[in-house]
């Protein structure tokens, strides 16, 4: 009689679970399915405790900036055709990621963008002409990184992951609660600097959110050539970094997940890794020929998951967006594009001698010598013109 309860207890699941230690990987692994709060048609899915839906005002602002962002993006692509831009990497189709991510951070936080993030930078409020300075052929990044708390757009892949870790650690060291948001693509996660950056952030518990936009291609190379992992979010556990994957074409889910990730980092819990599953609708850049590596059917399938339509449907259904509001945002977008067009049509004046101004704080004697040589050449050229 008396043994029975013990026997029961011994056999009971609870005791058995206690016997085997809990898997330390569990709290670090992402959900097996990407977080999704709206289905592709824009219909809301059951609310979830782990990722509460952002306030409606935030969602309306998200919608507005996504529309502006896409208009900026199409305008930029158009400018390449007119030879106003040397090159432009479009992020059309990735609006939920580009805009959702920057809305999740504060102006005082630091953003580390790649060449792909022009849309994210204008969504952050940086002057679009400044954002396009480098791409229009000037030799510098256009904006003042210290003013907008945004690093220059980074081309050497994954290198920014380490900078973000250092910046975040340095800010914390100086007592500021800054969070660093580092953008990176799926292909770039194969670079050693991704590994070293997230590992430094983890070891120093630096407040960094690593945001991988998995748009399935690195130029022409498909994700299957980048990793054999179940998905990129599974890389976090190897660094002791909690991770999540999200439907990157669901603006509400992206904002919700990034908001939680940023809070995690700001609270002093160290870095957080987010993978967004999305798709680049345009070629890699205007110079790329996507038909060589993917077929139209694949692109069409993604057209049905358009993030802007998805959010619009939802907000209309919730009754917080109507024709008038949509029209007004569209108008703003047109005005924004028109202003960009006119300003980009003015050929910028660049002073050749400025090339020597910022190589060092003070030019070396060798650079002074070279500057004088160029100065003389320019003078001679002017004289010739004068004669002509």
């Amino acid at each position, binding site marked *: 009689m008396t043994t029975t309860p013990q026997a029961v207890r011994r056999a009971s699941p609870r005791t058995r679970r206690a016997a085997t230690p809990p898997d330390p990987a569990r709290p670090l692994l992402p959900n097996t399915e990407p977080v999704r709060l709206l289905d592709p048609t824009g219909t809301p899915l059951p609310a979830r405790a782990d990722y509460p839906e952002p306030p409606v005002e935030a969602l309306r602002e998200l919608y507005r900036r996504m529309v502006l962002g896409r208009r900026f993006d199409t305008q930029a692509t158009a400018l390449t055709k007119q030879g106003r831009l040397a090159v432009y990497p479009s992020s059309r189709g990735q609006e939920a990621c580009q805009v959702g991510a920057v809305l999740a951070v504060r102006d005082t936080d630091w953003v580390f963008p790649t060449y792909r993030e022009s849309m994210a930078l204008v969504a952050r409020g940086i002057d679009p002409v400044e954002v396009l300075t480098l791409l229009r*052929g000037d030799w510098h990044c256009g904006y003042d990184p210290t003013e907008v708390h945004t690093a220059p757009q980074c081309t050497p892949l994954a290198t920014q992951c380490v900078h973000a870790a250092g910046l975040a650690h340095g800010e914390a060291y100086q007592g500021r609660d800054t969070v660093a948001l580092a953008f990176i693509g799926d292909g770039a996660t194969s670079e*050693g600097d991704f590994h070293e950056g997230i590992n430094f952030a983890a070891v120093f518990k630096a407040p960094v959110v690593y945001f991988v936009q998995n748009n399935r291609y690195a130029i*022409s190379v498909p994700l299957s050539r980048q990793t054999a992992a179940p998905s990129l979010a599974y890389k976090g556990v190897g660094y002791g970094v909690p991770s999540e994957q999200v439907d990157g074409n669901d603006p509400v889910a992206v904002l919700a997940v990034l908001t939680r990730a940023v809070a995690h980092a700001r609270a002093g819990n160290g870095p957080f890794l987010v993978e967004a599953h999305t798709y680049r609708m345009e070629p890699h850049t205007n110079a790329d020929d996507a038909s060589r590596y993917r077929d139209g059917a694949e692109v069409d399938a993604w057209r049905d998951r358009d993030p802007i339509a998805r959010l619009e449907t939802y907000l209309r259904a919730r009754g917080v967006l109507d024709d008038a509001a949509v029209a007004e945002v569209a108008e703003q977008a047109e005005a924004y594009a028109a202003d960009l067009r006119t300003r980009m049509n003015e050929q910028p004046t660049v002073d050749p001698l400025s090339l020597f101004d910022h190589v060092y704080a003070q030019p070396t004697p060798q650079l002074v010598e070279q500057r004088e040589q160029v100065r003389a*050449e320019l003078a001679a050229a002017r004289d010739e013109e004068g004669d002509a």
Partner: protein
Amino acid sequence: MSTTMAKALNTALADALAADDRVVVFGEDVGALGGVFRITDGLQARFGEDRCFDTPLAEAGIVGFAVGLAMSGLRPVVEMQFDAFAYPAFEQIASHVAKLRNRTRGKLSVPIVIRVPYAGGIGGVEHHCDSSEAYYAHTPGLKVVTPATVEDAYSLLREAIDDPDPVVFMEPKKLYFGSAETALPTRTEPFGRAVVRRPGRDATLVAYGPAVPVALEAAEAAREEGWDLEVVDVRTIVPFDDETIAASVRRTGRCVVIQEAQGFAGVGAEIAARVQERCFHALHAPVLRVAGLDIPYPAPMLEHTHLPGVDRVLDAVARLQWDDQPDSRWAAQGSAA
């Protein structure tokens, strides 16, 4: 018939793949896309995914993977998408590719070709126009080759792939789509031989890669000034052809070295130093250099200011003390002595 350098390189790769099963071609976007410059265009379709393939996006990985493949007996040809994007592979190149033969007394060789589209003049943005040849030329164990003609592009690349040693094959981007009347295959002078592209009596212009057309143009323009200039194309920086260059300068008595890379501690410095060591008593003037400015490569709008052009070359030629007056240029900073 007319052929571009891009086509010559593409054909050289195809012919090498056809000639030797051990040859494999890989890198970023070299498969379906055929490379961002289309140098590997059609190779995957023709030779299959095993022989021409895309890799994960990691340059140290690509070069290190090539080292391992070479250890297994293959002959890897890898593409670095752009010059500055080879930097992540620098350790693999400097500490392994360059040294493995020596570390194993020749038991292991690394017959790898690392193709690097380099230099500017194509309106590329930052990090896409570096001239990085000096980094490799300064690293013992590497051969460093750079074609300036369509004929050399084919011949030197075939030779590089057949070479038992690792070769950093520097391809001047701005010459990719220049064409010449020539039929492939071509066979030109072997590694270690510089070539006189234009004979002349008054002075020698030494150039390589993207600077060769500039030198030829300058030589053409110099005729109006009454100068008959010889142009020597270095072709292979390592091994270097002292004989041809010294012979030319001994003949002309004057020399200008032209490179697109930033000048300081570049290959042009080595050439200038070697020439004056060997031809001192034949020189009527110091060996002068015309090089890129010592600044980060400036993006499209100002690259013409950076690139050594015909005018800068002619300025240098004009300073070769034809009147036998010492060059006043350095007086300003020089001591009174």
